[in-house]
Structure formats: structure tokens, C-alpha cells
């Protein structure tokens, strides 16, 4: 029995040594291409995004609501793990609910990526790297009618606090997915691709 306990302690110690813990926001800066690392939200940089956010457009009578939360220690590239944002959301148009992931399970609808860099493309094709920001988080999101196309979404949410009013600027760049048989785009979003959401 003692032998088993010693073995378990030894295994636990080896595992602890194998995976170092570093701040999540350093993933794409000082710790880029790190291996066997837990990118943990030690400094609470995801906290500002957590909560319920709402977009309302009275012209088109559209309401989009999302509640963001944090999931810890999920798998990542290069034998690493990281904390990520996830969320539940719903869309209402003209008073009619189009979908609601709070109450329905449609499959994998949203994925947090991280505090990634962005790129500014020049006319000669080159790209300038813009460093990550702790106020800018990258995700992917889909709607129930085209689950399976998360990879086609490049969603950037940027946090702002203007005199106590907390906002998220939402920009979803979508790679068009074209169905070969009829040349039709299958990932056409009902939710706006660009919007400003207010903290509730």
C-alpha cells in the first residue's frame, strides 16, 4: 500500500513539473510556441468579458444576447492547455426567437481562441503583425443552421469601458463556405457580423 502511495505521489510530482503555468495573455508574446504549458488566466484578464451582453437594433427589430463565461484548463496546441471564454446566446427578430443556445443543445456553437495578434495587410501582400491586447479576445461562433463551420468564423470581441458603460465591439469575419453542388454559400449569418453590445 505504501508503495502505491509513493508511486502516486511521484507521478503527481512528475506531472506538476512537466506542465508549467504562465499567464494566459502571454501565449502569443513571450511564450509563443511554448510546450507542456498551462496558459492560465492568473491575472483575471478574461473577467472583464464575463457576464451578459446585449445588442438591440430598433430599425430591424433585432435583439442578440450572449452570456460569456470562463472554462479552465482546456486542451490546446503543443501539449498545452489554456483557459478560454465560452458562451450561450440567443437571437430574436421581430419578437420571434430564431435560436437559443441557453435552452437548446445544437452542438458546438462557440469556441474561445485567445488573446491573439492581428495582422494589417499591405497592398504588396505583406502583413504587419499587431501585438495581442488584453482588451481584444478572439473566438469563433456559428448558428444552428450551419453547425460544423466554426473554423470559418474569426470573431474578435474588443472590450471598452466609457465612463462606466461597459461595451463589447463585435467583429465576425467569415470565410464563405461554398457548397460544391449548387455553388451556394451555406454559412450566411442571421446575427449581425458587426455590432456593439452593452453589459447587462
Amino acid at each position: 500500500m505504501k508503495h502505491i502511495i509513493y508511486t502516486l505521489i511521484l507521478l503527481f510530482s512528475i506531472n506538476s513539473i512537466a506542465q508549467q503555468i504562465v499567464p494566459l495573455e502571454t501565449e502569443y508574446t513571450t511564450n509563443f510556441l511554448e510546450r507542456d504549458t498551462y496558459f492560465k488566466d492568473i491575472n483575471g484578464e478574461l473577467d472583464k468579458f464575463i457576464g451578459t451582453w446585449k445588442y438591440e437594433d430598433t430599425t430591424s427589430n433585432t435583439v442578440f444576447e450572449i452570456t460569456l463565461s470562463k472554462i479552465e484548463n482546456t486542451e490546446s496546441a503543443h501539449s498545452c492547455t489554456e483557459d478560454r471564454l465560452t458562451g450561450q446566446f440567443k437571437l430574436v427578430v421581430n419578437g420571434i426567437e430564431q435560436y437559443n443556445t441557453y435552452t437548446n443543445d445544437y452542438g458546438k456553437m462557440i469556441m474561445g481562441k485567445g488573446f491573439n495578434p492581428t495582422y494589417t495587410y499591405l497592398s504588396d501582400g505583406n502583413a504587419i503583425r499587431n501585438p495581442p491586447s488584453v482588451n481584444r479576445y478572439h473566438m469563433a461562433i456559428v448558428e444552428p443552421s450551419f453547425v460544423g463551420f466554426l473554423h470559418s468564423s474569426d470573431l474578435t470581441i474588443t472590450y471598452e469601458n466609457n465612463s462606466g458603460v461597459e461595451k463589447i465591439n463585435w467583429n465576425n469575419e467569415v470565410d464563405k463556405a461554398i457548397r460544391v453542388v449548387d455553388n451556394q454559400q451555406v454559412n450566411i449569418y442571421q446575427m449581425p457580423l458587426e455590432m456593439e453590445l452593452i453589459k447587462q
Partner: protein
Amino acid sequence: MGFTTQEDGKRFIYTGNDINNTDTYTDSNFNQQSPTIRESDALKFPPLENKTLIGAHYHPPLDDSSPPKPIRKVPSGTDIAEHIVMVKKIAETDPTLPTDINQVTNFVVSKGASGKTYAIRTNNEQDVVNLEGDFEIDGEKREDIADAVADLILPIPVNDIDAQEEAIALYLSENYPGLSLYEAVYNSEGNIVTWTKL
């Protein structure tokens, strides 16, 4: 300009009697499979079938965003992840014998006079089989590899192909040593005469 902004490609499923015998790799021993969905930087195929041995796809020069962004010629992170998924499937259904080499190959082709042809190959099947995590389409690991490789390649000048090749080869050797990257060498008639390991 007449260029497509979507990828295109095919999978080739082996139908012969000895999947590890390269002498049987004739046109009549492969079924072609076309994608159902085409995107700027991805293709969606039907669920991966047993004995899918070869993948070949085309990187367009520009994507469909406005203004369009150039697409790099070198393999992307999702190309690496796709290769891993195919190797795992073959290893599961048709495990390679100790004297053989896993023959899963993914070709990445780009257009034009400066177009390139690359091939991702496997030098250690067990290394690839031992990789943990979800490399499938929409898996966290696949997306994170795509982001990591993009951040490696995009800051390199678009025309400095040598530096991009060096970066992707180093990335593979450090993170996925079970995989290798080759570049086709063409003669003046446009035929592949040999392959160079990067």
C-alpha cells in the same frame, strides 16, 4: 484576374489489396473523393473513409475577403492537422507493418510561375498516433495549430518563400517530429523529377 478564391482538391481512397505496397499505387487502385464544401482556407469532405491514403489540394493566391488577402503557398496549420487525422485513421484500420512506412501523403499545390508543390509525409507513425487531442475540423487543437502556424508565417514577407519554408519545417521538427515536409523539384518540361526534404 480569373483566380478562384476557394481551395479545391481531392482525396484518394486505396482500393487495392496491399495498402503498403507502393507498386500497387496505380490509378485503377484508387477512388477519388471530391469535397462537398469549398472555402478560402479549407475544404470539407464527407466523413473520412478507411484507406484514405492521399490528399491533394490547391491554395488559391487570394482569399474572398474584401480587400482580398494573399494566401501563403506553404502548408497551413489545418493542413498539418488534416494529415494527422488521416495517419491516425490508417494506423487504426490498416496498421503499418514494422518494415513498411506509413504512406499517407498530403500534397499542397499553388498556382503560377512561382507556384510550389509540397508534400507532408510521416516518418514515425507511432509518434503521430500518440498525439492527443481533437485534430478534427472545428477541434480546439486544430484551430490552435492554425493560429500558431499563421502567426509564424504571416509576419514573413510574402515573397520570401525560403524563410516561410524554413519556419514551417522548423515548426514541424520541434512540435511534430513524426512528420516531414518535402518540396517538389520540377524540370523545364514541368515534370517532377525529385523531392527535397525541407
